[in-house]
């Protein structure tokens, strides 16, 4: 199982080095070629060998939806929370800075899988115990929604990493930008909004894209906390049919297709922000 700590290097080098970059091939984009190959492979397997591949695809398709929902929702929350915490990390307010720094350091020191366990198993138990001591009915009967807990767990974990990306992006700008904005009478928030963040966004866009792809893959961890995502549906199928090779080939191909498409979209967005300049 992939842990949040080693994934950083693996994803980045995988994306940056091994796959062709935009502009290397003038007309046909090799990346889309790869997407098409994977897609064709899936279609071929499903049409030529419907037994069991078509069955597998049908069985896990609702898992694909769950994976996408968990990934996209978590990513949006990660962006919002990560931006706020990133601003906290560059704040001159000692209290805000301190609180956010502790959060970032703590969260980054605990594997994502353990965090998901905490949210799904420990957190509800705390609420129920609290309900018992306070004699508060809604807490006593609290039942954790697996998908919600998974989304909370991923977002809180990933936001800590995102905060560091945002902070690095802001700190990479020359101090003169903030000074010029302030010398024109802009308040700190105005300078952030109109001068600093739009520029930081351009530099951190590739890193955000990488985070998205890693999040998509790490979302498979939620299968352990009762979320019926693609991975969990694959495991369920395997345990009823005993077809490990076919099942995991199919699941792996679907993940690959999703990450390849995501990587492609990220690259397009990146180039768009570059062109504007």
């Amino acid at each position, binding site marked *: 199982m992939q842990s949040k700590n080693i994934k950083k290097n693996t994803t980045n080098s995988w994306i940056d080095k091994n796959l062709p970059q935009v502009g290397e091939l003038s007309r046909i984009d090799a990346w889309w070629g790869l997407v098409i190959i994977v897609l064709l492979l899936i279609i071929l397997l499903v049409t030529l060998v419907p037994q069991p591949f078509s069955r597998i695809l049908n069985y896990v398709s609702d898992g694909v939806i769950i994976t996408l929902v968990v990934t996209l929702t978590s990513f949006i929350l990660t962006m919002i929370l990560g931006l706020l915490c990133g601003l906290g990390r560059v704040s001159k307010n000692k209290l805000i800075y301190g609180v956010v720094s502790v959060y970032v350091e703590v969260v980054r020191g605990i594997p994502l899988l353990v965090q998901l366990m905490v949210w799904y198993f420990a957190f509800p138990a705390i609420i129920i115990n609290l309900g018992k001591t306070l004699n508060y009915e809604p807490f006593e009967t609290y039942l954790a929604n697996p998908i919600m807990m998974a989304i909370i767990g991923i977002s809180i974990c990933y936001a800590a990493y995102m905060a560091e990306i945002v902070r690095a992006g802001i700190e990479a700008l020359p101090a003169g930008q903030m*000074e010029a904005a302030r010398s*024109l009478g802009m308040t700190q928030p105005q300078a952030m909004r109109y001068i600093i963040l739009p520029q930081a966004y351009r530099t951190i866009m590739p890193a955000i894209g990488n985070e998205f792809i890693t999040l998509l893959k790490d979302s498979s961890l939620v299968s352990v906390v009762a979320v019926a995502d693609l991975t969990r549906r694959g495991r369920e199928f395997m345990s009823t049919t005993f077809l490990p090779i076919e099942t995991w080939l199919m699941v792996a191909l679907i993940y690959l297709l999703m990450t390849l498409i995501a990587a492609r979209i990220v690259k397009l967005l990146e180039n768009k922000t570059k062109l504007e300049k």
Partner: protein
Amino acid sequence: MEEPIISIRDVHKYFRDDIQALRGVSLDVYKGEVIMIIGPSGSGKSTLLRSINNLEQIDFGDIIVDGHSVNNHKDINALRMEVGMVFQQFNLFPHLTVLDNVMLAQKIVRKRGEKEAYETAMLLLEKVGIPEKASAFPLQLSGGQQQRVAIARALAMNPKIMLFDEPTSALDPEMIQEVLEVMIQLAKEGMTMVVVSHEMGFARAAANRCILMDSGKIIEEAPNDELFTNPKEERTKLFLSRIL
């Protein structure tokens, strides 16, 4: 005599507790005056200039700009609206066009409408001689053009005072003149200016007073360009012999 528009009173400034950048600087600047500050590297010229609009917070003393004290932190943005600043490195906003560079603060700080901000911006771009570059991005301009845009951007806020921190030091020699001309024009129109620069040409053309700073103190002060032509203090002579 009237009230000074900038009153600097016994200002001290430390960096990291051990570097004393300013050691008791006092200076009054009157409306319409052009003050030029020269001095060796590290003498505190930038620190003094940046203290005037509170980019550096002073540790002791007071600076009062048109009735606003830098020690009154609630008043800082009001103070900064009255003080335009031009930096050595231009510090234009690279993600905005030249026009937007000049319009943005007008809209969000001065709360001007789109039309008024646009007209002010175009008027100022004409004044600094580059209206045709309005839709270009800063990095597409030469250094001299960028610095003129930076001057227009500061002027767009209708400041009562303009501060210049070595505005021509980062420029290629052939571009220095075009920026100095804009500054001299501004001085002739009666703008109050505090200029850190070693350009003697500017002193001759526009300065009312020149000041030599060394190790955080004002060493000598002389009217017009007499500091260059007729220095009294040894340290001034020594410094001039090194730069001229």
